[in-house]
C-alpha cells in the first residue's frame, strides 16, 4: 500500500483491495474508498481541469460539494456518465474513470492557453465583443465558445439500466444522518411513529465519521454510532443511505433519489440503478449540517490546496494522508484539529497559519505539544506549483498592513474559511433567512412548511450541542404528533467546539489586479471578476451571479455563494442581506434524468390503449396510427401494397360490397334519468324532445364560446335513456364537460352520466351488402327500411350476443354499428368476418374511414374544424335548434365576430388539373399577388377518390358558402393549383345508397 495510507485509520476495508483505472492507468484502492480517496492514497491530486482557464485542479473537498474533481465514469457499453464527483463515486472492481475538459492530456492541456490570456476573459467579456462582423457570431465565434465550454462529454448510447420510483408516507422524515439527525430520529421514534432517516453517504454518521476522538456518554464515537444504529433499527426507524433528498415540495413532499447499483461491482438482477422516492411526511427535520468555506487568495486552486475539514475526513474516514508536509491556513479553530489529527498520523505539519490576531490558549498548547510552527496574524498571498502545490507564501499582517512575505515549502495547503450552514432544502420551501453578523452567514428563520432545522444547519457547533439540539427537535416533532419522547440529553467529551472569523479576499501585498484568487473554482470566477461586475453596475447578487457565473457551476454555489456574497457586499459597501442571497434550486445535487423518468420509458412512457379487436388487426397486418391515447388500425396493406393502394382497395371494396371497421374507440356515454332529454337539450345544439325512442340523431356539441367542440351519433334507447357517442379523442373531455355543467350549473336535473366507452365493442359494417350480411345474424328486428330505417337503434341479439344495433352510416353506404359487450367483441368480429367471406368482406382502417366520410361530406371535428369554427361555418346550421331557449354555445355563437360576414366556411374543392391537394395547403383568391399573400382559407381534408374519379378536398374558405362554383388558387412551392368550390357532398347527394 502507498505511503499515504495510514495503518489503523479509516473505515475502509484494508483486507479488500479494489482495482480501477483513471485515464487508462490502473490503480488499487480499498473497499469503502471513493475514487478521490483512492487516488489521493496513491498520491494523485491532479484530477481535472477548470471550465474557462483549463487550470489543473485536484479535489478541494471530500463530499458532494466538490467543484473540481469531476470525472467520467464508465461501466461497459451504454453505462457512461460525465461530471461524476470523484469525491462521491465509490470504487468497485473494474470501474473505469477518465479526466475531463483537457486535450491532449490532463497534464498537458492546450486549453490552458486561456489561462495565459486570462485578462481578456474577464467577467462578461463575451457581452462586449464578438459582435463584428455580424455573420461571424454564428459561423466563427459561437462555435469556438461552445467547443471551449462544457465539461465532460455527453453519453452517446442508450442507457441499458432501469429506474424506479415509489411513494412513501411517514410521520417524521429526518434529512441528514449526522449527530443531529441521528439524535432527532432516535427521539422521534416513539409511540409507533413512523420515522425515516435519510443520508446521501454510503453510511450514516456524518461528521462523527471524521471525528472518531469524540466520546459520547463515555463511549468512543464510532462505538456509540454502531450502538445508535442498532437502537434506531430496534425502534423501527427506516434508515436509507446513498439516498439524497433532492427537493422540498409543497406540503412536506420531499423528493429523494436512492442510488442502488453505482457502487457495486456486479449488477444484481431486477434491481433498478436509481429510485425516486416521493415522500410525504407529517413533519420534516432538516439536519443537513454545514459546509466549509475556502479562503480566497492567489493560487488557492492549486492541486494540493484543500479544505482542512476534508483532509480530516480523508484521514479519519479513509485512512489517507492528503499530504506528508501540509500547511494549515485558517480563520477558524476547526482547522487546528485537522492539523493535530494529521500530525498525530505522522504528517510533518509545516505550519499553522491563522489570519486572526489571537487564538485560544488550549489550541496553542496542543500545537506546542506537537512542535508545530505557528503563524498567527498572517495572511497567505500565493502558492507555487503547477500540478501540485510546492509552497505557500505567507505574510504577517499588523494593523491591516501586510508585511514582507516568505515562502513555506509544503505538499498540501489545508484551508478553512469557516463554515456555512447547509440550508438548501429549507430554501426550497421558500423559507426566509436571517443574516447572523457574528457567524457572517444566513440562518433559517420562517418557513411555510411543517419542518424544523436541527444542528449545524442552524449555526450550532460541536458534537454535544448538535446531538442535544437534534434530540430536542426530534422530541418536539414527536410531541407535535402526540408522541412522548423521553429525556435523552447526552454529554460529549473531547468535543471540538470552535469559532472563527470570515474574510473576503485575504489581504495581499501583490498586485490585486493580477491575483487569481478563486471564489467559484469550477467556473473560474475570481474575486476580481466579482468586483468588476459590481463596478459595471451589477448591484444585486442575482446580477453579479449571472454576470460572473459565480455559483452556477455543478456544485451550485455550495463552495462559492457566501464568499461571493461577502466580496460583492464589500465592493458595494453594503451589508450582505441588502445584496441578497440567490435562492437555492432543486435538486440538492445533480440528479440523473433516468431517476426523474422512473418507469416511464419505452412502451411504458405513456398508456397505449388498444381495443378488443386490436389483436385481430395486428395478426392481419394492420398498420397502426396513434390517436390520442389509442392506437388504431390505420390501414390493412396486403403484401406489396403501399398505403395509397391499400386505402383505395379498402374504399372500393366497401362501396362495392361491404367493409368492416373497428369503431370501438368512439367515446360512449350513457345518459339516464327523468331529465335526460332536458339535459341533452341543454348540452347539445340539436333539439331532442321529439326524437322517438329507437331513433338516433347526429348530435353537435359546442362550447359556451359558440365554437364546435365535438360531435357524434346519439341514440334514444328509451324515454329516459340515451346512448351518446363522442369522438375518440374527445370522450374524456366531453364527459368532464357534461359533468361540469350538470354538477355546477344544473344540479337540479335528475340525470346521471356513465362512461360506457369500454363496455361496448363497436363494429361498423358499411356497404351495399351490409344488411344482407348482418340480417341472418340478428334476432329481434328485421333489417328492412320499413322495420329498421336509417338512423334507428335497437337492443337486440346479434350472433347470440346481447347487442345494441345502430343503423347509421359514416360512409354514405348502408351502414350498421353493432355494439356488443366488449369481452365478446373479437368473437363477433370473427363471426362477421366469416359470414362476410361470401361478400368478399374487407377490413378497413381509419384512413379509408376518412376518405369515405369525406366523399359523403361528413366532417371530422379537429381536422375539418379547429377551435375557431361555428356550426354555421361548418355548414351544420341545420343541427342547431334555434327555437330552443338556451343550449351551451347559443349565446356564444351570437357574438359579433361569429355572425359577421366573410367568415371561413367549410366547402368542397375540386382541382382543375385533377391533382391531389395537400392537407394544410393555403388558399388565395389572387395567385398573382406578392408576398405576404392574403390567405382566405386552407385545405382541411384531401384524398384520392375512386368513387368520384378524381381527388376531392374539403376546405375552409372565406365566405365559402356564397362562392359555389368560383375558382380559388392554392400556391404551392413549385406551382399554383386552381380549384373549384363545390358543395361538400361528392357522393350520392340524395342518399339513394342509404336505402336497402
Amino acid at each position, binding site marked *: 500500500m502507498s505511503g499515504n495510507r495510514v495503518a489503523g485509520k479509516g473505515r475502509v476495508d484494508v483486507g479488500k483491495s479494489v482495482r480501477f483505472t483513471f485515464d487508462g492507468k490502473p490503480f488499487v484502492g480499498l473497499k469503502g474508498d471513493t475514487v478521490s480517496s483512492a487516488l489521493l492514497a496513491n498520491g494523485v491530486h491532479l484530477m481535472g481541469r477548470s471550465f474557462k482557464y483549463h487550470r489543473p485542479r485536484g479535489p478541494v473537498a471530500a463530499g458532494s460539494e466538490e467543484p473540481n474533481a469531476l470525472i467520467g465514469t464508465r461501466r461497459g457499453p451504454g453505462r457512461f456518465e460525465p461530471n461524476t464527483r470523484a469525491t462521491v463515486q465509490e470504487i468497485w472492481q473494474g470501474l473505469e474513470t477518465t479526466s475531463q475538459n483537457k486535450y491532449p492530456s490532463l497534464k498537458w492541456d492546450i486549453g490552458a492557453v486561456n489561462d495565459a490570456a486570462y485578462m481578456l476573459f474577464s467577467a462578461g467579456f463575451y457581452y462586449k465583443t464578438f459582435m463584428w462582423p455580424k455573420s461571424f457570431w454564428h459561423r466563427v465565434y459561437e462555435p469556438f465558445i461552445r467547443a471551449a465550454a462544457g465539461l465532460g462529454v455527453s453519453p452517446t448510447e442508450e442507457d441499458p439500466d*432501469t429506474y*424506479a*420510483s*415509489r*411513494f*412513501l*408516507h411517514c410521520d417524521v422524515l429526518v434529512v441528514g444522518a449526522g449527530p443531529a439527525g441521528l439524535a432527532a430520529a432516535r427521539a422521534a421514534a416513539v409511540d409507533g411513529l413512523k420515522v425515516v432517516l435519510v443520508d446521501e453517504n454510503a453510511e450514516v454518521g456524518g461528521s462523527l465519521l471524521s471525528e472518531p476522538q469524540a466520546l459520547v456518554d463515555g463511549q468512543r464515537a464510532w462505538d456509540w454510532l454502531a450502538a445508535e444504529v442498532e437502537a434506531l433499527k430496534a425502534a423501527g426507524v427506516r434508515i436509507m443511505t446513498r439516498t439524497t433528498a433532492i427537493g422540498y415540495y409543497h406540503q412536506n413532499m420531499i423528493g429523494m433519489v436512492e442510488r442502488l447499483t453505482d457502487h457495486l461491482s456486479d449488477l*444484481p*438482477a*431486477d*434491481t*433498478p440503478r436509481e429510485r425516486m422516492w*416521493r415522500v*410525504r411526511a407529517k413533519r420534516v427535520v432538516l439536519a443537513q449540517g454545514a459546509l466549509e468555506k475556502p479562503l480566497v487568495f492567489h493560487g488557492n486552486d492549486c492541486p494540493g490546496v484543500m479544505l482542512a475539514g476534508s483532509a480530516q475526513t480523508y484521514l479519519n474516514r479513509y485512512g489517507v494522508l492528503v499530504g506528508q508536509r501540509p500547511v494549515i491556513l485558517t480563520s477558524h479553530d476547526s482547522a487546528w484539529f485537522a492539523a493535530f489529527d494529521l500530525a498525530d498520523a505522522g504528517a510533518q505539519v509545516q505550519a499553522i497559519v491563522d489570519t486572526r490576531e489571537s487564538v485560544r490558549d488550549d489550541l496553542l498548547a496542543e500545537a506546542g505539544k506537537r512542535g508545530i510552527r505557528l503563524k498567527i496574524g498572517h495572511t497567505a498571498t500565493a502558492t507555487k506549483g503547477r500540478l501540485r502545490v510546492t509552497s505557500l507564501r505567507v505574510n504577517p499582517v499588523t494593523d491591516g498592513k501586510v508585511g514582507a512575505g516568505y515562502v513555506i515549502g509544503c505538499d498540501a495547503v489545508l484551508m478553512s474559511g469557516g463554515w456555512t450552514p447547509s440550508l438548501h432544502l429549507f430554501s426550497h420551501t421558500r423559507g426566509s433567512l436571517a443574516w447572523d453578523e457574528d457567524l457572517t452567514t444566513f440562518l433559517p428563520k420562517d418557513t411555510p412548511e411543517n419542518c424544523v432545522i436541527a444542528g449545524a444547519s442552524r449555526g450550532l457547533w460541536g458534537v454535544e450541542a448538535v446531538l442535544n439540539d437534534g434530540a430536542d427537535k426530534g422530541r418536539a416533532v414527536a410531541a407535535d404528533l402526540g408522541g412522548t419522547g423521553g429525556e435523552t440529553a447526552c454529554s460529549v467529551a473531547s468535543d471540538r467546539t470552535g469559532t472563527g472569523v470570515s474574510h473576503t479576499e485575504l489581504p495581499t501585498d501583490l498586485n490585486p489586479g493580477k491575483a487569481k484568487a478563486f471564489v467559484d473554482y469550477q467556473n473560474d470566477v475570481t474575486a476580481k471578476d466579482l468586483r468588476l461586475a459590481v463596478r459595471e453596475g451589477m448591484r444585486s447578487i442575482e446580477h453579479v451571479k449571472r454576470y460572473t457565473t459565480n455559483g452556477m457551476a455543478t456544485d451550485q454555489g455550495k463552495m462559492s455563494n457566501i464568499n461571493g456574497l461577502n466580496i460583492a457586499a464589500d465592493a458595494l459597501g453594503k451589508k450582505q442581506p441588502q445584496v441578497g442571497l440567490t435562492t437555492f434550486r432543486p435538486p440538492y445535487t445533480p440528479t440523473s434524468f433516468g431517476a426523474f423518468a422512473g*418507469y416511464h420509458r419505452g*412502451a*411504458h412512457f*405513456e*398508456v*397505449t*390503449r*388498444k*381495443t*378488443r379487436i*386490436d*389483436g385481430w388487426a395486428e395478426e392481419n397486418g394492420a398498420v397502426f396510427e396513434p390517436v390520442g391515447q*389509442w392506437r388504431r388500425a390505420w390501414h390493412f396493406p396486403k403484401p406489396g401494397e403501399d398505403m395509397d393502394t391499400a386505402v383505395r382497395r379498402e374504399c372500393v371494396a366497401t362501396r362495392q360490397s361491404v367493409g368492416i371497421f373497428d369503431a370501438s374507440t368512439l367515446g360512449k356515454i*350513457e345518459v*339516464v*334519468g*327523468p331529465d335526460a332529454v332536458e339535459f341533452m337539450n341543454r348540452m347539445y345544439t340539436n333539439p331532442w324532445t321529439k326524437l322517438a325512442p329507437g331513433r338516433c340523431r347526429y348530435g353537435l356539441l359546442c362550447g359556451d364560446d359558440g365554437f364546435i367542440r365535438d360531435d357524434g351519433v346519439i341514440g334514444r334507447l328509451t324515454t*329516459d335513456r340515451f346512448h351518446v357517442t363522442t369522438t375518440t379523442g374527445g370522450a374524456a373531455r366531453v364527459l368532464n364537460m357534461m359533468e361540469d355543467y350538470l354538477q355546477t350549473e344544473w344540479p337540479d336535473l*335528475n*340525470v*346521471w352520466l*356513465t*362512461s*360506457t*366507452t*369500454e*363496455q*361496448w*365493442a363497436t363494429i361498423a359494417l358499411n356497404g351495399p351488402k351490409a344488411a344482407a350480411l348482418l340480417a341472418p345474424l340478428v334476432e329481434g328486428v328485421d333489417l328492412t327500411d320499413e322495420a329498421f330505417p336509417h338512423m334507428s337503434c335497437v337492443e337486440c341479439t346479434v350472433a347470440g350476443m346481447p347487442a345494441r344495433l345502430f343503423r347509421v352510416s359514416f360512409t354514405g353506404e348502408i351502414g350498421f354499428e353493432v355494439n356488443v*359487450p*366488449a*369481452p*365478446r367483441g*373479437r*368473437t363477433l368480429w370473427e363471426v362477421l368476418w366469416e359470414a362476410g367471406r361470401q361478400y368478399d368482406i374487407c377490413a378497413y382502417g381509419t384512413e379509408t374511414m376518412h376518405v369515405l366520410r369525406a366523399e359523403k361530406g361528413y366532417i371530422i371535428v379537429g381536422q375539418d374544424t379547429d377551435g375557431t369554427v361555428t356550426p354555421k361555418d361548418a355548414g351544420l346550421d341545420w343541427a342547431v335548434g334555434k327555437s330552443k331557449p338556451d343550449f351551451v354555445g347559443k349565446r356564444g355563437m351570437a357574438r359579433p365576430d361569429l355572425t359577421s360576414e366573410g367568415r371561413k366556411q367549410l366547402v368542397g374543392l375540386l382541382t382543375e388539373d385533377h391533382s391531389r391537394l395537400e392537407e394544410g395547403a393555403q388558399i388565395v383568391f389572387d395567385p398573382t399577388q406578392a408576398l405576404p399573400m392574403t390567405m382566405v382559407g386552407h385545405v382541411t381534408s384531401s384524398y384520392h377518390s375512386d368513387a368520384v374519379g378524381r381527388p376531392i378536398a374539403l376546405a375552409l374558405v372565406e365566405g365559402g358558402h356564397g362562392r359555389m362554383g368560383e375558382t380559388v388558387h392554392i400556391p404551392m412551392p413549385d406551382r399554383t393549383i386552381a380549384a373549384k368550390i363545390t358543395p361538400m357532398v361528392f357522393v350520392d347527394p340524395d342518399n339513394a345508397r342509404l336505402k336497402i
Partner: protein
Amino acid sequence: MNKPMSSEPEVLAESAAVRVRLAKPCARLSLRARGDLAPLEAALGLSLPGKIGERCTGGELEALRLGPDEWMLHLPEGTVEGVLSSCAGVYETLPHSLVDVSGREVTFQIDGARATELLTLGMARDPESIAVGEGRRTNFDGVTVTIWRDADSAYRMDVWHSFAPHVLHLLETGCRELAAEAV
C-alpha cells in the same frame, strides 16, 4: 389481456414478495341515485353503504360507495338481468341510473407479503388510508382504478380494460423489483 378470460383466477405475475392474478370475470353495475334509497335497497336486497369508501354485501352482491350518489356493484355473471329488472321496478318511485359495465373493467387480485408496498409504485395516496374491508377509487400511475382492500395484504384493483396492460406492466416490474430487494 385480449385473450378470452379463464373461469379461474389466472396468475399474471408472481414472486416471493407478491402475486398478481386476473380475477375471474364478474358482473359489474354502476348505480347512481340520490334521496331516500330504501326502495332500491329493497330491490337489491342490501342496505347501501352510507360513506364514500365503505362496502357491504347482500347475498352474492357486493357494493362499494364511490361517490355521494354513486356505487359500484359486483355480482356473479348471469345475475345482471334479475337485478336490472327488480330495480326497474322501483324506477318510478326512485329514479336512478343502473348501467351494466361488466365488460368495461377487469380486476387484478394482488396479494402477498409486500402487496401494500407494490401499490406504492404507482399510487400517490397512502394505501394504509384504505381500511381493510373498504375501497376507494384513486389514481395508479396516471390511470383511474378502484382499489378494494380485502385483507391486510390482499387487494383487488378494478381497471378499465384498455388501461390494464399498462397497469399490469408496472405491477409485473414491481413484483420482480420487490423480490430482488433484501428486506
